[in-house]
């Protein structure tokens, strides 16, 4: 006898099934059908591919799924899809999840251990889902004397700011949520929000260790924002634009990392500091100040902050690729979509499939996305690598590096950019176009 349902009887099971079917039919006739007719009567439905979208047409989609292609195509071109799914948050969250998995396995290999191993049978691939479920099911504890509205709002704000950052990164030609002419300035504006959220959390938690961690984070982020901004001015001088898509388009030939290696190095170090990653993880130094400004977070609030920080990691890596590594540019690897499928269809044995609409994604878009993801994952791996090699740096050395060395290197980088312009190497009249 099964231990799950010890008093199982087939008759009761069938009775319950028929019961459910009966009530479903009754409720659908009494409530569902009137609602459908009210909708049809009052709301004007969109016309897709020459046909009016109606519930009856929607039922026919079940019979022929290829008829849904025009709908999917029109959905993909909406802003909603861009924000939620592809170049926006969903894509970023997917890469963030992949990053967490890669970080665990990659570090584990450096450190002579297997890493997550059991969950999901294949190399612990479902460990992240298990962790997420654990965090969701945990109790959220708020300190008694905390400033509750700010404390509740902070994790959501953190994720929202990270998502806003993601919306500025161009993934493929034309595939960017917000294609701003002042894209780079918008990036700086969004980065400026992170220290504010951090200090709000640490103040609102009303606890000592978050307070110290928040003050440290403030020091660190503010002092590394200046080299971060200055290191990108070289590119702005060379390209003459602040639009991130145009900056990528300008790197069709040679990437900017070739001309401005110092700027790239400074920008990379500043990224590490902004992301609070080892060796700059002072705000979360666990042996000194428990978990820094995250100490009082529990359950899914902590999970949200972690999600936000990995989305932020993706966004910074994407920004590095966009600015220095040529964004979506790369040799064509995706084969072009054959025209015969649209016109004639594919015949596979007795079934022939015909796709009447256009292809959903163009070849440039798929190819650009592929190269962008490959480069971004490469940058992310390099961002993860110091965690296996370096210990944590001290606060005075950190400020010394930020204010003294990196800013000096930034000016050197600016002079190199100016030299390239006035030396006639680059720019409108240079010999390398």
């Amino acid at each position, binding site marked *: 006898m099964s231990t799950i349902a010890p008093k199982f009887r087939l008759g009761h099971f069938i009775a319950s099934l028929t019961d459910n079917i009966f009530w479903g039919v009754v409720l659908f006739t009494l409530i569902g059908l009137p609602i459908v007719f009210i909708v049809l009567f009052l709301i004007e439905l969109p016309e897709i591919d020459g046909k009016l979208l109606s519930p009856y047409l929607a039922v026919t989609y079940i019979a022929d799924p290829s008829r849904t292609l025009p709908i999917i195509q029109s959905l993909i071109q909406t802003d909603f899809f861009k924000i939620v799914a592809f170049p926006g948050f969903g894509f970023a969250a997917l890469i963030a999840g992949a990053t967490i998995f890669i970080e665990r396995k990659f*570090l584990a290999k*450096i*450190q*002579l*251990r297997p890493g997550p191993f059991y969950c999901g049978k294949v190399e612990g691939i479902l460990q992240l889902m298990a962790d997420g479920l654990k965090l969701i099911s945990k109790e959220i504890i708020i300190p008694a*004397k*905390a*400033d509750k509205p700010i404390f509740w709002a902070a994790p959501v704000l953190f994720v929202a700011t990270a998502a806003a950052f993601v919306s500025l990164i161009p993934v493929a030609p034309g595939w960017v949520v917000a294609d701003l002419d002042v894209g780079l300035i918008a990036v700086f504006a969004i980065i400026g929000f992170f220290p504010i959220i951090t200090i709000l959390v640490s*103040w*609102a938690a*009303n*606890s*000592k*260790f978050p*307070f*110290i961690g928040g003050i*440290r984070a403030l020091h660190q982020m503010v002092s590394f924002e200046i080299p971060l901004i200055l290191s990108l001015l070289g590119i702005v001088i060379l390209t003459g634009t602040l639009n991130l898509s145009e900056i990528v388009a300008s790197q069709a030939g040679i990437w900017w990392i070739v001309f401005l290696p110092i700027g790239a190095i400074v920008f990379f170090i500043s990224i590490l500091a902004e992301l609070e990653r*080892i*060796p700059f*993880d*002072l705000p979360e*130094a*666990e*042996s*000194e*100040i*428990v978990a820094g400004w995250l100490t009082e977070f529990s359950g899914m609030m902590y999970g949200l902050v972690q999600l936000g920080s990995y989305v932020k990691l993706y966004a910074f890596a994407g920004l590095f690729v966009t600015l220095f590594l040529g964004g979506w540019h790369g040799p064509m690897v995706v084969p072009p979509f054959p025209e015969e499928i649209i016109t004639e269809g594919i015949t596979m044995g007795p079934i022939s499939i015909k796709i009447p609409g256009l292809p959903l994604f163009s070849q440039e878009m798929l190819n650009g996305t592929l190269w962008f993801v490959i480069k971004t994952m490469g940058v992310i791996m390099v961002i993860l690598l110091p*965690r*296996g*090699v*370096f*210990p*944590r*740096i*001290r*606060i*005075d*050395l950190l400020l010394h590096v930020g204010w003294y060395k990196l800013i000096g290197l930034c000016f050197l980088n600016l002079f190199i950019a100016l030299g390239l312009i006035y030396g006639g190497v680059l720019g409108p009249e240079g010999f390398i176009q």
Partner: protein
Amino acid sequence: MTTQFPPGIQLEKEDERIMTLNIGPQHPGSGHMRLIIKVDGDYIVSCDPDPGYVHRGEEKMAEHRNYLLNIPHLERPVIHDSCNILYPYCLAVEELLGTEVPERAKYIRVIASELNRCVYTMYWLGIYGIFLGHSTMFMWPMADRELLIDLLEAMTGARVTHSFFIPGGVRNDVPPNFEDRVLRQLSYFEKRLKEYEDIFYQNPVLKSRTEGTGILSREDAIRLGVTGSVLRSAGVDFDLRKKEPYDVYDNIDFETQVLKEGDSYARSRVPYLDMLESCNIIRDALTKMPTSGSVRVKLKPNPKGSADEVYRRVESGRGSLGMYLVSNGTPQPYRLKISVGSFRNIICLPYLLKGELLGNMPAVYWSLNYWPVEADR
């Protein structure tokens, strides 16, 4: 009437800049002890170590058991260094009972105690790594330590709580072809130690963090009574294996590791150099060890000592470890006083931390080669 503070951080008094941090006993950077640290900004004004959370009354327990039954529980304070903590006890009891230890047992004791020193130091090094945020240095010693533990397991039958040393020798002889196994393991171990040197001790970030922090001068080291690696890192050439040789340490060629700087880096480096020297000691002991012979002297079931007082000390992983044994002629010790290096080293922590940055606290604290459980006994 109390003042109503606005939401936000609340200090002890409104007009003071000093904030008190209770680091421990439940804190990732404390171990089983509490550090009451007062900070002004990021600078430490004062530090008050508060050990005693894992006191077990080992000394009192020893008064109710006879000399042999004391062995299993006396090694509990430092299970990672259990041979070394039993060493002075066995020496003291042997002197009290007037037992002569066989020559082969003496060499086996030296080998076991040096292996155990490496096992302990690897554990300590791993925790030092994670205290500084170096997670690779936490994982590597923990993994390589297992191989040494396997050796000790083959030798004694237990992984960490060996109960191997007994008054009158060691409990059992080493297994056959033990020598080859030890030599093979040691060559691998030394190779790994060189990799530790590259990734940890020559790491520029680590050097910038630990060099010049928490400097203990030679005079202060002698005045505060620190022992072991802390004393030797301050430039004092004092190793009990050299100065007061016990068993066969006077027959073995080895060098005392002394550094002059006295900062956290030197304090963290002396145990590492000791590990390298331990490999040489083990090799030398294996060549000089008699190939056959008895390893223990049969004691009477319930031995009685003469009414006398004995004090013997050895160089453990954490410094001088002494046992003061008072007997009144009964089978139980009248009094057993354990003097441990951990407790004597932690005394200098308030002196070292004053005026340092809070970020230096883990680097200075754990470089003192301190084991909270041993200090509480």
